[in-house]
């Protein structure tokens, strides 16, 4: 096959030509993978070939080695590993050769391909000579080849985990990289490539950072690079410092003073991309110290691995003025641009983190700045003052902040209505929101909002909702937190008298002409949701009235026809918001008997609307509607059966939606809701549901996070249908057993531990539901053959000693359920298990009351089973 021509055609502007070319490439790949990869790497290596085809050849090679989707990636890795060894070594030779090509596109693509191959082979202990051959002649080759080599090392470090490269090779990589960074290297591109490579290699340098001399050397080179005349090098060097600040926080003491000097000069004088990284360094130190101090304050006092060096506290007198200066460097119109990120925003963010780190100490350093600037004629000064004030509201104690806030509140309310500048109003509304967010909650006794000023606050916020979209959005946000502040207070909320007015204003906002292009409409509905969630029994009749209003809105969106694709997208977004709002209302009204009863008059109509919503294609809308239906099923109970004939196909559709796995996950949860609501009336639908759920479990395309809920759902169904579950028992038990075997032992990182525990929990909930479901049935004996495995699973996870309290509670409950249902059939089995002794005793004396409660129940069930 003449691959050059095909690669050319694949980039043709003529669609047919392009399609044909892509088709023949695909065929080539499927019919002869080694030949395909070999000719691509040949094309990439051939200096005679045009740049375009070489570049595309590299890209296709890369895509043949890696993919975003986990299962696809796994497939590609397996395919590469099973290739013929000769072909592989030929391809790798071509790649290494291309690395020293003078053509930039060729060597730059190649360095990524090499890293991908390394990512597959090094963990398998293959290609051991790679790093040696990359470094063998790094000093003698031309600058462009050196650059390519350093880039390859950088990508390689990004691709593989530190434990697959031995320390000797790490040392060699670091030496090459640090030498490439140093001032003696004359070529700017080489220095830049080296600095970026170091960023990726830092994770490999644990041993080197423990050695004073080596660490000093690396730190010196990085700090020097921050002073390079080339802006990209300075930026990359600061990125290294940011990474060091989190990876090697505990090694920073000797350098922190120098770093402060470097960063503060960069923040004040350097170009924005560099200044942003310099600020990020301090934000990152704050993150570290907040974590450490949180651990200090937590239950395991003093057991933290890393001590806090209080860098922020010590730097405070110089750090805070530096950050305050940045606040004055706002961009015009930054509030209109959703993605804006600039020095002022980064500085304010950092100031907020500093406040969280040091608490009260920041207040006296910021207050003079606020006082000095808040009344200045230049909007930048007023905005910066307000931003500074808003930034420090999370961290210092309420005792320290409340007197200040009480003074500021009146001023802010007046600024929000009267300030001529929109930025100032925007920030003022945001700062008010922060006051409500952090200083209202029931924990704080000092009143900020009184009967006297509540009226004024509400009036000002509602008025600001008529302001420009960005100010209105922030006003909605402030109202959100104001409502939240009174959540769960038993007494009548001071907002109750304004409920009607607030709801009306929010609905008006959603109808603004200019609502389309901003987040305003979303913010208004989110606020409406929170207002409903936090409403009290006095306003329940008003919430009930809202049902009809939102239903009408949703109805209207379903009536409009012939929309452009852009309009349709907006329409879906609105439908999602409306379904979300209905969900919140249903959940609210469904949680009390009186309101639930009154709400039921709307159930048929609402369900009718949801069914129509499913006819439109949008994942978000489906998810929202599905969640709302779950809440509806809970509220209607067994009566939900009448909706099932029509609803069932959408339920099945949701369960089949692997692509948008959130929809699938939510649907699985709704199956649980419906099982509990319908109980045995769900039987006619069980065949379809169980078949799909079992199919989902065996698929490797479904996101793994959906699998634990599927198991829990087995339990829900079994509990609902009782002995009818017999039909599925064999299949369900076999799926449960294999998952149980897999999840007994955990080997991996925290994330995997967490996942495994959630999987165990799902499995255990399934067992619980099944045992309880079969209780008192003549078919109880069907479960006896499975009992040994269940007990073995319980013993297994108990021995592992790594389950969380949640799993512990569910597990000991299963022991009780097994005893409860099987009674004396299982008594000897139970008595032989470790779980019934050590595990049970451990749970009985648990600190966690839920665990203890389950254990007491299990104990009772066991004693009954044994004695009968």
């Amino acid at each position, binding site marked *: 096959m003449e691959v050059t021509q095909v690669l050319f055609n694949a980039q043709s502007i003529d669609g047919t030509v392009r399609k044909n070319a892509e088709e023949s490439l695909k065929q080539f790949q499927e019919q002869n993978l080694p030949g395909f990869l070999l000719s691509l790497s040949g094309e990439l290596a051939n200096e005679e070939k045009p740049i375009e085809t070489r570049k595309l050849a590299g890209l296709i090679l890369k895509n043949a080695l890696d993919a975003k989707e986990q299962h696809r990636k796994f497939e590609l890795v397996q395919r590469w590993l099973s290739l013929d060894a000769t072909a592989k070594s030929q391809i790798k030779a071509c790649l290494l050769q291309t690395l020293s090509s003078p053509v930039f596109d060729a060597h730059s693509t190649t360095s990524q391909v090499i890293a991908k191959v390394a990512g597959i082979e090094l963990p398998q202990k293959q290609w051991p000579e790679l790093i040696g051959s990359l470094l063998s002649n790094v000093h003698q080759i031309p600058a462009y080849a050196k650059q390519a080599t350093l880039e390859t090392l950088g990508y390689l470090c990004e691709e593989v985990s530190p434990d697959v490269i031995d320390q000797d090779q790490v040392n060699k990589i670091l030496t090459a990289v640090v030498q490439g960074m140093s001032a003696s290297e004359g070529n700017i591109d080489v220095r830049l490539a080296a600095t970026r490579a170091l960023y990726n290699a830092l994770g490999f340098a644990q041993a080197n950072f423990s050695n004073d001399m080596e660490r000093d050397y690396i730190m010196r080179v990085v700090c020097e690079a921050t002073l390079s005349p080339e802006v990209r090098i300075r930026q990359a060097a600061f990125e290294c410092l940011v990474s060091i600040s989190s990876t090697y926080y505990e090694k920073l003491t000797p350098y922190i003073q120098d770093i402060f000097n470097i960063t503060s000069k960069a923040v004040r004088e350097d170009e924005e991309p560099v200044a*942003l990284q310099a600020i*990020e360094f301090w934000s990152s130190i704050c993150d570290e110290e907040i974590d450490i101090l949180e651990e200090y304050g937590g239950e395991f006092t003093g057991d933290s691995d890393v001590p806090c060096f209080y860098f922020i506290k010590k730097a405070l007198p110089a750090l805070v003025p530096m950050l305050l200066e940045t606040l004055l460097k706002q961009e015009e119109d930054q509030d209109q641009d*959703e*993605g804006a*990120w*600039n020095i002022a*925003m980064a500085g*304010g*963010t950092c100031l907020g983190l500093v406040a969280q780190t040091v608490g009260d100490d920041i207040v006296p350093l910021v207050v003079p700045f606020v006082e000095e600037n808040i009344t200045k004629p230049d909007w930048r000064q007023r905005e910066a003052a307000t*931003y500074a004030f*808003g*930034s420090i509201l999370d961290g210092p104690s309420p005792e320290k902040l409340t007197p200040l806030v009480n003074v500021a509140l009146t001023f802010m309310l007046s600024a929000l209505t009267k300030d001529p500048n929109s930025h100032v109003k925007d*920030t003022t509304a*945001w700062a008010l929101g922060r006051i409500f967010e952090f200083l209202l909650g*029931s924990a704080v006794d000092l009143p900020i909002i009184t009967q006297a000023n509540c009226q004024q606050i509400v009036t000002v916020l509602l008025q600001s909702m008529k302001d420009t979209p960005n100010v209105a*959005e922030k006003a909605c*946000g402030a109202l*959100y937190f104001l409502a939240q502040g009174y959540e*769960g*207070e*038993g007494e009548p909320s001071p907002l109750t008298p304004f409920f009607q007015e607030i709801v009306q204003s929010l609905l008006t906002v959603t109808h603004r002409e200019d609502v389309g292009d901003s987040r305003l409409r*979303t913010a208004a509905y*989110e606020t409406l*949701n*929170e207002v409903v969630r936090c409403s009290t*029994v006095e306003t329940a009749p008003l919430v009930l009235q809202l049902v009809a209003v939102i239903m009408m809105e949703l109805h209207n969106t379903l009536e409009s026809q012939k929309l452009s694709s852009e309009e349709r997208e907006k329409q879906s977004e609105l439908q*999602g918001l409306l379904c979300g709002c209905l*969900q919140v209302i249903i*959940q609210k009204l469904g949680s009390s*008997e*009186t309101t639930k009863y009154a709400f039921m008059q709307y159930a048929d109509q609402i369900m009718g609307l949801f069914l129509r919503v499913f006819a439109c294609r949008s994942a*978000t809308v489906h998810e*929202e509607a599905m*969640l709302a239906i*779950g809440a509806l099923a*809970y509220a209607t109970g067994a009566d939900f059966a009448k909706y099932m004939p029509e609803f069932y196909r959408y339920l099945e559709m949701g369960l089949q939606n692997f692509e948008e796995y*959130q929809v699938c996950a939510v649907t699985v*949860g709704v199956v*649980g*809701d419906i099982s*509990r609501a319908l109980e045995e009336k769900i039987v006619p639908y069980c065949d379809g549901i169980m078949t799909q759920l079992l199919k989902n479990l065996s698929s490797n395309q479904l996101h793994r996070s959906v699998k634990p809920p599927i198991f*829990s759902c087995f*339990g*829900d169904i079994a*509990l609902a249908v009782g002995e009818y579950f017999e039909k599925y028992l064999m299949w369900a038990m076999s799926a449960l057993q294999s998952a149980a075997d897999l999840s007994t032992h955990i080997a991996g990182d925290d994330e995997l531990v967490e996942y495994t525990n959630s999987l165990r929990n799902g499995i255990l909930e399934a067992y*619980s*539901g099944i045992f309880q*479901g079969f*209780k008192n049935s003549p078919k109880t004996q069907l479960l006896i053959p499975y009992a040994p495995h269940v007990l073995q699973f319980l013993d297994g996870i108990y021995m592992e000693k790594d389950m969380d309290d949640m799993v512990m509670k569910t597990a000991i*409950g299963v022991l009780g*359920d097994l005893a*409860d249902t099987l009674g004396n059939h299982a008594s000897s089995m139970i008595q032989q298990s470790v779980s019934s002794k050590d595990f049970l005793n451990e749970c009985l004396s648990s600190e966690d*009351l*839920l665990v*203890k*409660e389950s254990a*007491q*129940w299990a104990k009772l*069930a066991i004693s*009954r089973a044994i004695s009968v």
Partner: protein
Amino acid sequence: MAPHDIRRPFKRAAISDQQKRRELSLLRQAQNRRDAQQQARCLASSILSLQSAAPESQPEQSDIELETVPEAEPESEAFSKDLDVRQASKLRGPEVRKWFARQLMLPEWMIDVPDRLAQDWYVFARPAGKRCFVVSSNGTTVSRQRNGSILHHFPSALPAGAKIRDGSGSAQSYCILDCIFHELDQTYYVIDMVCWNGYSLYDCTAEFRFYWLNSKLEESGACNAPSHYHKFRFSAVPVYNCDQSGLHAAYTGVVPYAKDGLLFYNKHALYQTGNTPLALVWKDENCSQYVIDTDGKGEIPSQQQVVLELQDDRKLVTSDDPPVLFGCLDGDIIEKVWF
């Protein structure tokens, strides 16, 4: 320039209501699943989640005040009489209802005036609502209606009623209150106290129980407004001596709840499960909305309907609380009705 990938510009709203909706739904589903599971487990044992309430051997806490109470028995004995877990566990369906009904003290209709009414009796306005047992133990509180179904499962400020790690209340402590749940203000009105903080009050006089109820309930914080660890408010009801002014106060006095008749309790009576002549109930149109039927317009129809329950022993009773026996049917009639 794009924002830092891990650092969200904090002036942008950090709230994602969609995520919040998802999480709240998951929370609700988890709670519903727990409730369903719990109900299944409780059906097994038909008990009040009291398994820990009767520990085999538990060292008694010394409580000076309580020791002065005459005849106060250790609670385990009091329970073994009435709440035999093993026995109750065999009950199913309607049996459960009967068993639970048996745990509550039920008044008889007041058809004449007892002797020494003014001296020996209390009177109070009965709140309208659901009669239930409220049991707090092991950091949770469960209310069960007479039919054994769970009304609520919630945290409360009652001793052992919520999971708060302040160490208050030993693991063995628990409470059983005889309550009426009043829908409108979502409040549990406590009409009697059966056990408090691990101590049984079954064998205490009403006089003592009411005294204890009034002082302890307030003290526990259970009368406070609802909060995160205290989902429903509890309230005692005003109890009067049965003299003229007390009767007047109970009959006409304003209370924060809808009235459903007057209850009379003999001061010297112990808490006795089932019907007892030492507790009486009176209803008329002034103190109960349920005394007479009204139609949709609120008018009183010329004929009042009564639904009667035919019991297995051929007795015909009303479904009032307590039931009134109308008479007994002979076998002939029963067969005719049957066919």
